[in-house]
C-alpha cells in the first residue's frame, strides 16, 4: 500500500487529513467571536435578554471547539516540520515571521478568551465585559491573517533570491506582502464569517423545526441569516478577485480548475461535466465569455490554456470538481439567504415553512463542504509544487518510513475528537434548553 511504502504519499495524506480536520475548528474559531460580539452588543443596546443569552450560549459552545482547535493547530504546527522538513528548512529562512506572529496573535486571543469566559458575572457593567471580546475577535482574525500569509507565500513566493540553492537577500516583510496575500486573506476571513453565520442559522432553524416556537430562536435565525447574506456576497466578490489573481500569477491553476486547455480570447466558463477517455469535456455547461470576464474583467481577453505548461508541472484536473463544488454552494447560500431577506420584508409565508428551514439546516454542512473544497482546490491546485516554481512536494517530504503508521494513529485521534465534540456539545445544550435558562436567569434577576 502506498501509505506505508511511499513517505511522500503518506506525508501528503496525513497533511490532508490534519488540515481538513483542523479547518473546521479554525473556521469556527475565526467566525464565532464576531457573532458573540454582535449578539451581546445588540443585547446591551436593546436591553434584550435573549441576545445576551445568545452570546452566552454561543460562547459556551465556542470554548469546546476552540479547545479542540488549539489541539489540532498545535498538531499541524509541528507536523509541518515533521512531515516537510526540507520545506521548513527553506521556508523557515523567509516565512517564519508570520508563523511567529501567529503564535502571538493566538496567545493574545487565548488569554482574553479565558478571561471573558470566566468573568460573566464579575462586571457590574455589561459593556466592560463586551470589551474583553474585542481582543478575542481581533486575535482570532489576526491568527487567520498570518497563517494565510504563509499559505499565500507558498503560492506566490517572493522576497528573496536563490543562488546555487542558497537563499540570499531575504526580505521577510516583502515575502509576507506577496501577490496572493490580499485575495487569499480576504477570502479566508469572509468565508469563515459566512460559514459560521450559516452554522448558527442552522442551529436556530433546527430548533424551530423541532417545535420550539420561542422568539429566541427566531431572533437568532434572523440575525445570522442577514449577516450571512452580507458575507456570502462579499465572499463571491472576493472570489472574483481571486480569479483575477490566478489569471495573472498562477494561470496554470485557473486553467486546470476550468478545464481550459487551449489559450483563447473570449474564453467560456466551463461548469460541471466530466472528462472522457480522450480528455474531451462532456455534459458541461459553458457560459460564453465568462472565463475571460472572471480572469480579466473583459469578455474578449485572452486566457492562457493548460497546453502552455509542461504536463509534469500542471495541476491535477480533479480540482475542477472542487471549484464547482465551492462556487455552487456559495451561489446557493447567497440565493437562500437573499430569499430569507426578501421573504422576511414581504412577509412571505414559506419563510416559516418546514421545508425551507430544512434547507437552512442543510446550509451548515454545505458551507463547511465549500470551505473544504476551496482548500482542496488551493492545495491540490498548487501541485506538484510546495513552493510554487521552487520546491516540489516530493523534494520537501520527510524520508522517514513511519508516516503511514502515524497517519493511522492520527486518523483515529481525529475520529475520537470529532465524535467527542459532537457528543459534548449535544450534552451541554440538550440538558439546558433556552427556555429553562431564560426562566432561571429571570428568576435570578428578582433576588
Amino acid at each position, binding site marked *: 500500500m502506498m501509505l506505508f511504502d511511499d513517505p511522500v504519499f503518506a506525508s501528503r495524506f496525513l497533511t490532508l487529513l490534519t488540515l481538513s480536520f483542523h479547518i473546521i475548528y479554525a473556521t469556527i474559531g475565526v467566525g464565532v467571536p464576531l457573532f458573540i460580539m454582535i449578539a451581546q452588543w445588540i443585547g446591551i443596546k436593546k436591553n434584550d435578554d435573549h441576545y445576551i443569552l445568545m452570546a452566552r450560549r454561543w460562547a459556551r459552545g465556542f470554548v469546546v471547539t476552540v479547545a479542540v482547535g488549539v489541539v489540532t493547530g*498545535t498538531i499541524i*504546527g509541528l507536523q509541518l516540520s515533521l512531515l516537510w522538513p526540507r520545506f521548513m528548512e527553506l521556508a523557515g529562512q523567509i516565512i517564519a515571521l508570520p508563523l511567529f506572529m501567529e503564535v502571538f496573535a493566538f496567545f493574545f486571543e487565548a488569554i482574553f478568551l479565558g478571561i471573558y469566559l470566566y468573568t460573566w458575572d464579575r462586571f457590574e457593567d455589561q459593556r466592560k465585559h463586551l470589551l474583553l471580546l474585542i481582543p478575542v475577535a481581533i486575535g482570532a482574525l489576526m491568527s487567520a491573517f498570518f497563517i494565510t500569509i504563509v499559505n499565500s507565500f507558498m503560492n506566490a513566493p517572493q522576497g528573496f533570491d536563490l543562488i546555487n540553492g542558497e537563499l540570499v537577500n*531575504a526580505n521577510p516583510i516583502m515575502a509576507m506582502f506577496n501577490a496572493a496575500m490580499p485575495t487569499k486573506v480576504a477570502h479566508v476571513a469572509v468565508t469563515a464569517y459566512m460559514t459560521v453565520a450559516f452554522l448558527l442559522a442552522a442551529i436556530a432553524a433546527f430548533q424551530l423545526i423541532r417545535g420550539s416556537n420561542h422568539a429566541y430562536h427566531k431572533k437568532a435565525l434572523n440575525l445570522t441569516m442577514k449577516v450571512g447574506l452580507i458575507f456570502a456576497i462579499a465572499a463571491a466578490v472576493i472570489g472574483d478577485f481571486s480569479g483575477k489573481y490566478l489569471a495573472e500569477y498562477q494561470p496554470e491553476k485557473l486553467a486546470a480548475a476550468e478545464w481550459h486547455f487551449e489559450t483563447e480570447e473570449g474564453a467560456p466558463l466551463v461548469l460541471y461535466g466530466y472528462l472522457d477517455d480522450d480528455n474531451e469535456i462532456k455534459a458541461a455547461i459553458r457560459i460564453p465569455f465568462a472565463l475571460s470576464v472572471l480572469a480579466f474583467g473583459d469578455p474578449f481577453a485572452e486566457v492562457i490554456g493548460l497546453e502552455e505548461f509542461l504536463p509534469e508541472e500542471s495541476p491535477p484536473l480533479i480540482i475542477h470538481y472542487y471549484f464547482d463544488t465551492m462556487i455552487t454552494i456559495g451561489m446557493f447560500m447567497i440565493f437562500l439567504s437573499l430569499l430569507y431577506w426578501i421573504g422576511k420584508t414581504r412577509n412571505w409565508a414559506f419563510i416559516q415553512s418546514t421545508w425551507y428551514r430544512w434547507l437552512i439546516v442543510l446550509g451548515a454542512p454545505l458551507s463547511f463542504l465549500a470551505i473544504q473544497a476551496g482548500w482542496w482546490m488551493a492545495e491540490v491546485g498548487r501541485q506538484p509544487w510546495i513552493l510554487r516554481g521552487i520546491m516540489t512536494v516530493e523534494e520537501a517530504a520527510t524520508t522517514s518510513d513511519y508516516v503511514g503508521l502515524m497517519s493511522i494513529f492520527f486518523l483515529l485521534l481525529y475520529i475520537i475528537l470529532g465524535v467527542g465534540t459532537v457528543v459534548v456539545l449535544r450534552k451541554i445544550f440538550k440538558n439546558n434548553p433556552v427556555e429553562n435558562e431564560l426562566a432561571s436567569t429571570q428568576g435570578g434577576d428578582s433576588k
Partner: protein
Amino acid sequence: MTLEIVGMTVLWTFLFGYIIVGAIDFGAGFFNAFSIITKKQHILSNVIQRYLSPVWEVTNVFFVFFFVGIVGFFPQTAYYFGTIFLIPGSIALILLAIRGSYYAFETYGNRGHKGYAFMYGLSGLLIPASLSIVLTIAQGGFVSMENGNPTLDYYALFTSPLSWSIVVLSIIAVLYISAVFLTWYANKTGDEKATGLMRKYALIWALPLIIAASGIIYELRFHNPAFYNQILDLWWMFGLSFLLWIATVLLIWKRKKYGLAVWLLIIQFALAFYGYGISHFPYLLYPELTVYEGFTNQAMAISLIVTFVLGFALLIPSLYLLFRLFLFDKRYVQGKKPKEGDN
C-alpha cells in the same frame, strides 16, 4: 552578544517557561487521577480545576512558541530534528491532544468520567517522557547520516541508560515542581487538607529528583565527555541549584513561606536548565549542527527579535491581567464567587 546567542536565549527561555508551567499542568493532572483512584478526589480536584482550566491554553502556547521559534531562528533544525523526531513527536502530539480534549470535553462539558481522567493523568507523565527524548538525541550518538538523510538509531536510543535516566528525571521533575506549586496554591485557597497532601507529595519526590539529576551528569561522563567537561566548568551553577533545592525542601518541611519556596524552586531549575544549555553550546545536535551553521539570515533574525519584543510588550500586561484574575484574586482562588452554568 551575537544574534545567534540572542535567538538561542529567547528559545531556551520559552522552553524553560514551558517546562515550568507545563510541569505544573502535567503533574496536577496526574495527582488528580491518582486522587480519584485512591478516593481522595474531594481533596484535590477543586484546587486543580480552579487553576488549570483558565490557564491550560496559555501553557500550550509556550510549547508552540518554542517549536515555531526554533524553525525561525535555526531553520536547519527543521530538517535534522523534523526527520528524526517523527515518532516521538507524533506520540507527544497525540498525548497533548488527549490532554487538550480533556479540558474541552470534561471541564467545559460534563464532569467526571474516570477512565478519561486516568488517561489524562497518564498523558501528563508520558508527554515529558516523549518530549525529553529530544534532549537525549541532541547530545549525539544516536543519529547517523544515511544517503545524506539523518536517521535515528532506535535500538541504541532505547538501550541507552542515559536516555532512560533523562526520561525518569523529566517525570520526577514534573511531579516535584507540580507538588511544590500546588502546595502553595492549596495553601492560598485555605484548604488545609489539600495543602497537607500536596506537601507530602513534594517531600516524597524531592530526593529522587536530585538522585536522577546527578545520575544524568554521571552518565554523560561516558556518553559525551566534551559535554561533561563543560558541565564541570559550570559547577557553580549546578552547585547553587543544589543549595536552592535544599532551601526549598526545608521551607516545605517546616511548613513555612510556600510562596518563597516556589520562587526558589523556579530559580533552582533555571540555574540547572541554563547551565545545561550553556554547556551544550554551541551544538544544537552533537556533532552535526551548531548554532552558527544552522542560523537564519540576518534580516529574519532581526525581524523575529523585533516581533518578539513587540509581542511581549502586548502579552505581559495581558498575562498580568489573567494571573491577577485567576491566580492572585483571593475571592476567585477561594472559590467564593458562585460560578454559573457550565462555564
